[in-house]
């Protein structure tokens, strides 16, 4: 893993893609990296594919967007298609297991890829709302760039107010994060 990382995340509006991007960039910033996160969105308030671009580097970051990502995360059918342009020969594609057919028809088997059962685990073992936190864990494990403590601190900053209202949410989110890290361990190093 080098000292710079470009991540493009794509999902349905409401899947929590932007929160993941915000937490990663915040964690990177507090860990002493240069970080830049930019969301991409349409005129609609809900629905549509939600895209987020994150860059982490030891050096000053230039343009907010990039041509090709080191890691692309695609979390819905439409998102697989929409994020295609950011996938190059070296890009690692992370996607939910449920999108396997979609990914295969678009990329074949050549692309570096990692399918994770985040949707099913979130729904059956946890809660649909922590789907994105599982993704966060997977990404952070695969990227292997930031210490877990920085990620957790950023998670607290983003969700701390909700944890304060309902402490069981903290436990749920940390469990989801841990599960994500575990899922990521089986993955390809970037």
């Amino acid at each position, binding site marked *: 893993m080098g000292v710079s990382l470009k991540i493009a995340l794509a999902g349905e509006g409401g899947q929590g893609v932007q929160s993941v991007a*915000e937490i990663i*960039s*915040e964690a990177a*910033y*507090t860990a002493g990296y*240069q*970080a*830049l*996160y*930019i*969301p*991409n*969105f*349409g*005129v609609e308030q809900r629905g549509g594919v939600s895209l987020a671009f994150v860059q982490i580097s030891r050096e000053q*970051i*230039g*343009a*907010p*967007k*990039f*041509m090709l990502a080191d890691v692309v995360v695609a979390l819905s059918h439409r998102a697989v298609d929409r994020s295609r342009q950011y996938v190059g020969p070296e890009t690692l594609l992370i996607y939910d297991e449920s999108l396997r057919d979609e990914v295969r028809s678009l990329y074949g088997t050549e692309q570096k890829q990692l399918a994770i059962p985040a949707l099913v685990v979130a729904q059956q073992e946890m809660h649909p709302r922590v789907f994105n936190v599982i993704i966060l864990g997977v990404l952070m494990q695969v990227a292997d760039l930031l210490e877990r403590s920085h990620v957790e601190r950023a998670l607290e900053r983003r969700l701390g107010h909700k944890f304060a209202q309902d402490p069981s949410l903290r436990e749920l989110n940390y469990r989801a994060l841990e599960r994500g890290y575990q899922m990521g361990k089986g993955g390809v190093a970037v």
Partner: protein
Amino acid sequence: MVTKPIKGEQRSFMTGNEVIAWAALAAGCEFMYGYPITPQNEIMHYWTRLAPKYERGFLQTEDEISAGFTTIGGVLAGKRVFTATAGPGNVLMQEAMAMAEMMRLPTVVVVTQRGGPSTATVIYSQQELNLTSFGGNGEGLRIVYSPASHDDLFSYTIKAFNSAWKYRFPTFVLGDGYQSKMRAPVTLYDPEERGLTMEPCYPMVGLPGLPGEEREPAHLRNTYNLEEELFAILSDSIKDYESMTPEVVEWEATAIDDAELLIIAHGIVSRAARAAVQVLREEGLKAGLFRPITLRPFPVAELRRLTGQARRLIVVESAYGQLEKMVKTALYGLKIPLRSYLRPGMGITPEEIVQFAKEL
């Protein structure tokens, strides 16, 4: 004077819209007027959240025409005030800004460019350069700053208040949707702790004393009966504008000394251009970057001087020739080939610029 929001230097990680709200607070801005439009909404959101803590005010108007004119009202009352808008809102605001230009009122407007024409996208563009610089039925006697980073957004929002009140021309910070929505590091500071003195603001109407006897009447006009009257007033304004220009123009030059290929870009695109220059240099091409920071007045003399030994020029912008037109006007008479990479409403990456430069 109201409470100071920032003490010392504060490193922070936030969106550009949040940076602008903090900058206005740090500048001692007393009031914001505004009407919601993406991508500037969060300037208002952060401002309304922060303003009560620091005894500042906010008025949401019924549209941008009103936001422009209430900003003028705040200025006439002698307050350091601003508004923010984008796209179609910027179009509506031009009526008030033309009036500010005629009456020499130090209005401050932050523009966060979105795609155009019309509603188009809420995302990003550099297509409001013409509108912001020359949008009124007049001569474009305005000051327009083009920031390229969060630190720029902070500094130039503060500076906009000072330039406006010092020179009394409507002043704009021409940002864009990317800069608004981006989260990136920034250093916030108190301007006075950095040795910057804020230009004093003063009321222009409702002054003490009997008009005509104890003082000159405050006669601020945007209406004239005679061609000669208007011509005299405008001639004075144009003279002021031209004599102000050397003091106000700002630009940034990168790797320019031996540059044979000069890239010209402003705002966020200049960051991609700078990265492209580095790559091109590594590949043995003598590339350099000229970034105008003031778009009005445009750094004409500086660009002409620095273009000196360049053999080729490339203008890069997220618009279809708005910056290119300013560059061509500035370089009139010089015989250097110019090609442009024009992407209206689209973000531009360093890779595209490198490719374009190599294909020339």
